[in-house]
């Protein structure tokens, strides 16, 4: 049963619902990056590769934090600490999920956003831009996958909770895949999604909270 974890499909859903947020931010960024030197837009391939790169980064993060999580759980000497940590962060995830869903405004997924090493990133972007769009797309995506994003942090936290590197990678990968469709939408569909943005972000919050509940349920069972 652990192989087909419902977390994965939930992560995909979260990605999709959360991508209403991405359209504004990442959408603008990707369109800017896809401009060639003479100001024209490069094609679909750029977007596909860029998004692939982003998903790879997410999966990698998931792998890493999942492994960290498993290391934490395995150490039985730390069981008391682990239990508090795990259940505490489950509750935290549930809280910010519900917060984003509109239950209380102060705490929500967006508050998770903290600055990243921006200078370093933009330097690398500048270097990559020297390559042709087709060549730079994948590495650009991989690089900008590290952009600070509240939704991403929330997912990373649940990936830690899964306490399994494979599940972590799959969860984060599914999340990345889920964000892709919305970024490909132009015109009517994109504006439709944008118009439903608040609604979708709330639903994403509920999803996150559900994932937290699922983990919490598992952890209570596992640790008792």
């Amino acid at each position, binding site marked *: 049963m652990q192989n087909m974890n419902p977390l994965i499909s939930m992560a995909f859903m979260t990605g999709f619902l959360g991508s209403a947020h991405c359209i504004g931010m990442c959408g603008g960024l990707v369109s800017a990056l896809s401009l060639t030197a003479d100001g024209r837009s490069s094609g679909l391939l750029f977007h596909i590769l860029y998004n692939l790169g982003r998903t790879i980064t997410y999966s990698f993060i998931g792998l890493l934090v999942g492994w960290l999580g498993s290391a934490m759980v395995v150490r039985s000497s730390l069981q008391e600490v682990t239990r508090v940590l795990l259940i505490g962060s489950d509750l935290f995830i549930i809280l910010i999920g519900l917060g984003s869903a509109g239950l209380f405004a102060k705490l929500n997924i967006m508050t998770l956003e903290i600055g990243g090493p921006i200078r370093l990133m933009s330097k690398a972007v500048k270097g990559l831009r020297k390559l042709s769009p087709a060549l730079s797309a994948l590495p650009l995506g991989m690089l900008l996958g590290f952009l600070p994003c509240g939704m991403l942090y929330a997912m990373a936290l649940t990936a830690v909770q899964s306490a399994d590197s494979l599940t972590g990678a799959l969860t984060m990968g599914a999340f990345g895949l889920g964000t892709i469709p919305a970024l490909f939408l132009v015109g009517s569909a994109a504006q439709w999604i944008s118009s439903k943005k608040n609604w979708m972000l709330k639903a994403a919050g509920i999803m996150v909270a559900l994932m937290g509940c699922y983990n919490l*349920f598992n952890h209570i069972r596992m640790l008792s």
Partner: protein
Amino acid sequence: MNATGHTPLTCLHCGEVFTEQDPVYETINGQDCHFCCHGCRTAYQIINDAGLQNYYQRRDRKTSANKEAIEAEFDPEYLNQFITRHNGKATISLIVDGISCASCIWVIERVLQKQPGVLNARVNFATHRILIEFNTQETDLAAICQQLAQLGYHPRPYSLNASQKASDKERRSMMFRFGTAVFLSMQLMGFSIALYAGYFQGINPETRQLLQILAALVTSPVIFYCGYPFLRGAWFSLRTRQPNMDLLIALGSLSAYCYSLYAMMFGKEVYFDTAAMIITLILAGRLFETSARHKASAGVDRLLKLAPSNAQVRRNKEWVRVASLQLQAGNLIRVTAGERFPADGTIRKGTTEVDEAAVSGEPLPIAKVAGDTVTSGTLNLTGTIEVEITSAAADSFIARVASMVEQAQARKAPIQRLADRLATLFIPLVLLLAIATYFFWGGGQTAFLHAITVLVVACPCALGLATPTAVMVATGRGADEGILFRGGDILEAASQITTIAFDKTGTLTTGQPQVVNVSPVAITEEQLLQRLANLEVSSNHPLAKGILAYAKQKNVTPEEIDDSQCIPGRGIKGENDGIFSFAGSRLFLVEQGIKLPEQSSETTNSQVHLAEAGLYCGFIELGDTLREDALQVIQQLKRGGYQNLLLTGDRQDVAASMCRQLHIDQFHAELTPASKASLIEKIPATQVMMVGDGINDAPALSTARVGCSLAGSTDIAVDSADIVLTRPQLGKLPLVLKLARCSMRIIRQNLFWAFSYNLIALPLAASGQLQPVYGAAAMAISSICVVGNSLRLKKIRLDDD
């Protein structure tokens, strides 16, 4: 201002409006910048640091703006008619010309949303429509339009009619239901797979219970929200006691759902996935069908969009802009270069060139002068002209064509009635079969599943879709090609045609006389032509047009003379430097006391004689010429195995010579309109298509199995015809027949497919060989196959033999 007193800010990166709740401030290059979130700030910084600032400047670009658009003025009063007001918010829908890519949308939306007073602006890329919500106290529409024009996009008001609004709404709600169903079903899959795995590997009861509850939670909206159209349809079918397909779907999914709820309470296996999948897959089929229908009617929209929605009309000695719909016959309108004509009319002042490609398919611009007619939807190319409207926009050529296509798409082909009758018989049988299946398998859990499968798999959707989709796509394709079918019945009839009867004048011939002979007396041919042209230039008569066209061809330019006067039915009287000249019929010249030589021989052609200063100068003979493609078309039809027949009111020898020229098998000459019709009635046991254009052909057109008229035909001919070729080219005729035959072939394939699907799937389901989910998938796939097969008509090659 909102309730908490925060000022709304606009995010510098994504353009999203947000309140000052948790803003992100940054001072970049000495400027205060606001962002809605850290992500946007980072994105902004990266874009700036990577030297891509001009991405943001794109919003203010003016490069592609054309001069005309920038200088355009927007009359607030006119625009006001299109605004709908609600709760202090005003909304307007505009069509914007000049949108070429997704970044245009980006630019428009961002710029508009930055405008004070604009609450919301959304651009639809597919339709180039933009919906703006704004506050009338802070801004007015003219300013918004001005802003758009300055960006290089030319806005014009757009008003949806009620039916379009309804179908748009239906499509949107369908999309929404389907989207919801897909994502919830995917979610459900996660739970179900876990449950299945647990079933085989063992699972602890609490986990199972939790997963089952979660599954029930996501399934309920799928059934009751996404599946609402089916539930409602089923309810109505019960109330009217006419079982339909919705009933089968509703019964199938509801019974799986209710049983699963029951099973959940008592710790048995649940089948929520089955219930949700049935709804999701069938919605997929419906959605595909709706979008195919939308595609087919897009052609009509395109046609209607050709005519602009507003026009400058003369009211009390002033030019004012009004909606095209308000134009009445007799109104004088002004059309500037680059505009399309909003209605049919006659030019009163000015000369121009008109691109009629949209209506006639003629690619070259046509010169038009005062007195010439213009058709709605055609494009005024070079000059500003004043046009007197001859028919209201709603009765214009374009509008009539569009309504014909729409009606055609709704008319049923006889073959469909068969399918309908079968479907109504079919459903009670299926219900019985499902009950029988349940009891045959002993009434347990498996029996229940088998019965559900029967219900789901039997849904005769494919059967119901087989004909209408093909008819819709074929009529849409026809409209693209300039062929209008009046309905599915006409498609079916045209596919059975064996004989084609042609009218002569205006059908096989152009109906426009052309010079065939110039015979001068005492002067050169050129002199004769020059003098006649000088006189005829003031006339509108077809013969005058023929002579002038010939003169132009020979590089003879008409010269101005002091005075000229048309005498109806006779000819033209002119005066130059005191010399009188007469041009016209033999009779006219005799009346003027001119001595003419004896008529050499009987001729079928028309003659224009000229006399100057009392002396006879000769005549020009004009004849009706064959259409360029007439011979080719007749040969093509003969190769296709069709019989050809010429019906004309003309004399025997004329008809005989034409038949020889065109290799037409048979002819009947010297016919009256009534005898044309009765002749067609008499042709035994064959299916005749009549092709004609005149008032005199109207009875024959309606008597024939299929009547076909050409663009430029008289209105009554168009109204009596079943098929109209919107371009005056006979060459489309073989295409008509080919398209009709192809459509019937596709319909037969569809019906065959739908029947065999049910014949194979039903026994399988009843014998318990199919899971309900596979049943639903098979059902959806069979519908999609049918619709896909119909869509082939859009691409099928028609021009080869």
